Structures are given as structure tokens and as C-alpha cells.
């Protein structure tokens, strides 16, 4: 029995001659296909249009309905009344926090009882768990919103925009309680900027190099280095400060200066950026490395021209988040930058320097309302900087669309942030969405 070698069946069922001819045949067919398979519309008799059918109205059996809302509201209200009576009328306790806690416990218990009565016990337990989970999430959101609003509330009304970004605290007069237009935090902004910038310039190349070592080189020391990096990211930031202080300042290698602060910040920046960049490099498909090697590229070329560019957005995001992490660090600056009232951007290497966290730390404990206000304004500026960094990080964590521009935000971008940007799979999923 000889197999039929001259005829090949193409996978889609089109029969074509084997060998050299098959492709030619295919090309030929492609041209003539339309008339074969799809007869012109005019020739086909149109079926009579179907009468429109009425759709039944959709229901969602497990939806959260009016009755459920009623139970929750009722439970909340009755708990409020109950706790108020017990708290203030019967036992004459006092205190807002205790009241709130008792009210919440009463609310949960009453929700359970009411649901068990109206519906069923299983459902009641389910519902109570849901209520607790949702309120935990709401509590976190509430805390964050509260902090932001609180700082804004304390800072904005007294802000003197003209001086905040142009003046330092040199001309602060203790006797003048309303001299907010005489002072500002520009010295601290510049100080923080210099300290963070140099920390990033020193730290990021080291972090990226270490991440490349951990992920691409696969030498004998990888496990050890990874463990050390992980341990390092657990170092309390005050220890980073003490380290630089005792190693460089006590030994008179450096004086209190912005540069010493930068070095302390590097200690904090290194492990966090390293770990994130390592994660980013790990999701670069190994097929790309193989393709590059198979083209005759040396290993370093592969890393430099293929792996890092592929992960570029992720690396940028990692750096931005790293900056956001160190820009508000206070403890390591206490022993290093030391803090200063005056603008001295030139004194970066050899002079005490101000920084935003240090302004907050020292001024908020002062007696003069001007300084307290200034501390809150510094906190406001710091928060604004971090916010901008996070927005930038979110933008960079989005992959580029087909036209090379970054696409619009999608609901799953948070997920993306968590995974620190995966370029290729998402690019390919673009069609299937």
C-alpha cells in the first residue's frame, strides 16, 4: 500500500495538488474564491422578516433588592437607638469611639437576626460576612480620604501661595504670629529634590544591575543575593540613617549634608526597586531571549537590547514607585541632612540641608501657629508630589497600543499595577478582548 504522496489535504479541507504546485494553486483559488462560495446576494430569495418577539423582562434572582436594603437600614437605625439608650440614658457612659464600636456591633447582630427572621439563617450568616468585609474595605478608604482631607483642611486655608514656593524660613520672626507671607518651604522642596535625585541616580543603576544579575545571569550566588536583598528591604529606615551617620558622619568622612541623606535613601531605595525590577524582568518571555541568542547576540546584548527595552515601562514604574517610597522618608534624614531653615542648594555636599519631611517633623511640634501651619503645608506639598508620582506610575504601567501611544485606562489597570506591567501578553490579548 503506497500512501498518496501527490495529493495533500490542506487543513481547512481545500484539496490541492502536492509539492511545488500547492501554493500556486492556493494563490489561484484565493482569487476565484468569492464567486464559488458566496453567491451574490441578489440571487438568494430573502426569507420574510420574522415578527418581532417580545422579550421577557430579565430578572436577577440573587440581586440585592429593596427588602435587603430595608433590613440594613432598619438594623442600622435600631442599633443606633438601642445603643444610644443604653449608652447615654441607662449607663451614662461617654466617648465617641466606644459608641461607634457598640453601634457597629449592634448593627451586625441586628442584621443577622433580621435576615434570619425574614429569610433564613444560612443567608443571614452570608450577609453578615459580606457586611463585615465591605465595611472593612470602606474603613480603609475612609481612613485614606480622611487623612488627605485633614491635611488639606489644615493646610489650604492658611496657604500663602506667593511665599510658600519662593521663601524659606530664614525671615521667620517669633514675635509675629501672622507672618505666613514671610515664610515658605522652598528650601525644603529643593533639598528633598536634590537628595532624592542623587539617591535615584546612584540607586537605580545598582538596582537594575542587581535585578539583571538575579534574573538573567543565574550564577551561584543568586539565592544568597536574593535573600540578602529581601532582608535589606525589611531594614527599618532609621537603621539606614544610623548606618550612614556612624559610618560616614561620625568618622568625619562627610558632614551633615544632603549627600549623606542621599546615601541613606539609597539604602532604602535599592532593595525595593531591585525586587520590583526583578519581577518585571521575570515576565519578559524567555522566547525573546532565545530569539536574540539565536540571532548571534551576546548575552549582554540580549539584556541591553531586548530584555530591558521590553520591560522599559515596568522599570520606569518601578523607579517612580521607588521615588514615592523614599520622598517621604523622615527617619534617615534626621541624622544625615539634619534639617535647616535656610535655602542652601549649593550646600548639598557639605552643609545641613532642609527637606520636606524634616519641616513637618520639626515645625508641627512648635508653639507658633505659623510654624504649625507651615508644617501642614509641607505635608500638603509632599502628598501632592507623591500623588503626581503615582499618577505617572499608573500611566507608565499601561502598555502601549498598536499606534505606539499609551492606551486609555482600563478597569484592570490596578491588577496591572500589582503585576508591575506585563507587556507582551496584554498586547496580544488586545484582539481577544
Amino acid at each position: 500500500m503506497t500512501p498518496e504522496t501527490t495529493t495533500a489535504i490542506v487543513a481547512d479541507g481545500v484539496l490541492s495538488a502536492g509539492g511545488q504546485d500547492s501554493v500556486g494553486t492556493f494563490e489561484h483559488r484565493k482569487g476565484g474564491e468569492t464567486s464559488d462560495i458566496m453567491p451574490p446576494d441578489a440571487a438568494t430569495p430573502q426569507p420574510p422578516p420574522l415578527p418581532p418577539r417580545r422579550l421577557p423582562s430579565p430578572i436577577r434572582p440573587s440581586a440585592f433588592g429593596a427588602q435587603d436594603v430595608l433590613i440594613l437600614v432598619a438594623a442600622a437605625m435600631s442599633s443606633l437607638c438601642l445603643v444610644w439608650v443604653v449608652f447615654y440614658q441607662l449607663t451614662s457612659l461617654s466617648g465617641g469611639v466606644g459608641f461607634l464600636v457598640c453601634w457597629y456591633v449592634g448593627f451586625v447582630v441586628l442584621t443577622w437576626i433580621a435576615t434570619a427572621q425574614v429569610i433564613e439563617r444560612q443567608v443571614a450568616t452570608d450577609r453578615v460576612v459580606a457586611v463585615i468585609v465591605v465595611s472593612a474595605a470602606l474603613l480603609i478608604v475612609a481612613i485614606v480620604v480622611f487623612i488627605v482631607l485633614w491635611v488639606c483642611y489644615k493646610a489650604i486655608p492658611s496657604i500663602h501661595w506667593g511665599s510658600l514656593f519662593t521663601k524659606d524660613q530664614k525671615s521667620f520672626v517669633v514675635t509675629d504670629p501672622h507672618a505666613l507671607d514671610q515664610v515658605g518651604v522652598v528650601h525644603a522642596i529643593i533639598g528633598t529634590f536634590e537628595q532624592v535625585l542623587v539617591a535615584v541616580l546612584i540607586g537605580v543603576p545598582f538596582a537594575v544591575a542587581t535585578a539583571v544579575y538575579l534574573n538573567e545571569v543565574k550564577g551561584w550566588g543568586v539565592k544568597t543575593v536574593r535573600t540578602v536583598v529581601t532582608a535589606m528591604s525589611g531594614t527599618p529606615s532609621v537603621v539606614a540613617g544610623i548606618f550612614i551617620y556612624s559610618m560616614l558622619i561620625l568618622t568625619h568622612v562627610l558632614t551633615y549634608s544632603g549627600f549623606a541623606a542621599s546615601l541613606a535613601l539609597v539604602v532604602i531605595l535599592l532593595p525595593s526597586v531591585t525586587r520590583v525590577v526583578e519581577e518585571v524582568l521575570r515576565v519578559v518571555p524567555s522566547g525573546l531571549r532565545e530569539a536574540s541568542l539565536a540571532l548571534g547576540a551576546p548575552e549582554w546584548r540580549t539584556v541591553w537590547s531586548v530584555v530591558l527595552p521590553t520591560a522599559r515601562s515596568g522599570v520606569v514604574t518601578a523607579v517612580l514607585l521607588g521615588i514615592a517610597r523614599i520622598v517621604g522618608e523622615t527617619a534617615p534624614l534626621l541624622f544625615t541632612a539634619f534639617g535647616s531653615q535656610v535655602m542652601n542648594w549649593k550646600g548639598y555636599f557639605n552643609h545641613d540641608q532642609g527637606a520636606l519631611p524634616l519641616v513637618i517633623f520639626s515645625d508641627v511640634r512648635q508653639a507658633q501657629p505659623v510654624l504649625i501651619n507651615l508644617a501642614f503645608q509641607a505635608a500638603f506639598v509632599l502628598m501632592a508630589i507623591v500623588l503626581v508620582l503615582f499618577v505617572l506610575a499608573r500611566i507608565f504601567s499601561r502598555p502601549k497600543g498598536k499606534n505606539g501611544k499609551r492606551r486609555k485606562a482600563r478597569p484592570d489597570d490596578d491588577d496591572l499595577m500589582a503585576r508591575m506591567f506585563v507587556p507582551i501578553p496584554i498586547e496580544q490579548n488586545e484582539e481577544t478582548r
Partner: protein
Amino acid sequence: MTATLPSTSLDDAEHPQVFTGTPSAGEPGQVDAHDVCAWFGDRLVLETVDLVMEKSKVTALIGPSGCGKSTFLRIINRMHEVVPGAQLAGSVKLDGVDIYGPGQRAMETRRHIGMVFQKPNPFPAMTIAENVLAGLKFSRTSPANKDDLIEESLTKGGLWNEVKDRLGELGGALSGGQQQRLCIARSLAVKPRVLLMDEPCSALDPTSTLRIEQTIKEIASEVTVVIVTHNMQQAQRVSDYCAFFLAEENQPGRVIEAGRTTTIFGSPTDQRTFDYVNGQFG
């Protein structure tokens, strides 16, 4: 040119060329594999493979899954040694020069023996044009005329007409079949002497598959092609020579039979080959 597969004796004296690359770059090359064995860790997965891949011909490697076809292919362009713990023995000669000989560099070999992988893998951070030129960039050579080279390579890869207006778009913006043809064009741009293809069509639809088969036939005059495929029809359509690999239970992979494709499919001498090509096998 007679079909003397599998080759058992190779006379080195008959191949006096020196493998320097530059002079004969771009000319199709002949690959002689002799006594090739491969290990992953301590496990022998490929045993004494002797195979000659003739110049300017398409050789297909067929055989059931796990019999060592990919391993053999990766040995030919020194990608096997990238896997940690992988070892090998035997010799592989490109136009008579042992690529594992002393002083031979893996990078140099890979420039002469290109590879196309099962999964299309264009570089996502590069544009289509940059993808084509990537191999040259890696070896720090700049072509006389970049635009001509891009057009030439993409035309050979059968992709030029589809992408000539969008060379600046990113490589990931193409369909799977187009990406695979881009990868072929990228491999051809460095003017290799041998092109290895590991199941290049297994992730593609029938139309793209036919396009790639057409491409393979067109380039065969300029580059020796070695292709791994699970598709018997494809092996018959594209290849001149064919080698059947088999790994029997708890045995390393071996070449059972090799020869002209028409012989392997028409009148194989080994019963196992007959069973496999007629689909009566695992």
C-alpha cells in the same frame, strides 16, 4: 548530488574549507552531524544521530513528541548549551568545519545557522523594520543600504506587501502568522547559510501555514532549511529529504530512517517508519 542518508562515514579530508564565515556568508551550507548524543542532566535523550543536511535542500525531521527533534535542531546551532545542565557529544560540521571545534564561538555559529521558533517571537519593543535589522545590530555590522535589506528580507519572508506601509509599527502589532513571517525575515536578514525551523507553523492557521511553506520553498535556493514538523502533509509538501526520529519506551531518541522524502513516505524500509507516516503510530 546523491542521497547518502544516513551518513555513516565522513571523510574530513574531503572538506578542506576553513569556516571563517565572511567569504562564503550567504551561500547555502551543508550540515553533517556525526555521532551526536545529547543529555539533559544525566538523562540521555538522543543517541548517535548521523545525518547529512544537504546544501540548498529542505530536510524535514519527523517523529513522535519527545523523541529529541528539537534537541537535535538546537544542537545544530549551539542553542542546546543555553539550557542549564545540558550536555552533548559527537560532531556537527558546517561545510566541513566542526562548529564545536576549539576556537569556534557559539555567537559566530548562530549567525551562520539561524533559527525560527515554534512560537512567533518578534521583539515587542522594536518596530517591524528594527526587528528585521536586529540581527545586524547585535553583530554590530551595518548594511550598505538598510532600506534595501529590509525590503529584500521581508520580501523573502513573504511579508513585504502586507507591511510595506507600516514598517514603523511595533512588531507585536501583527497577526500571529505575520509575526512568524517577520521572524523568518529577521533570521534571513543576517544571510545565514542554514535556517532551522522548529514547528514554525504549529501555532498558525492554514492560510498562514501555506504562506510560510511557500516562503520555505522560495528561500531553499539560498539557504539550507531544516524543519521539524508534526504535519505529515507539510513534510511531504516542503521537504526534499526526511529523517524519522523515534524514542522507544525508556530509550533515547534515534534516527530510524532517513532519505529522500518520496522514499520515506512511498517505500520506507523500516516498519516503524511505515506505521508512523501512515498514522498508525502513537
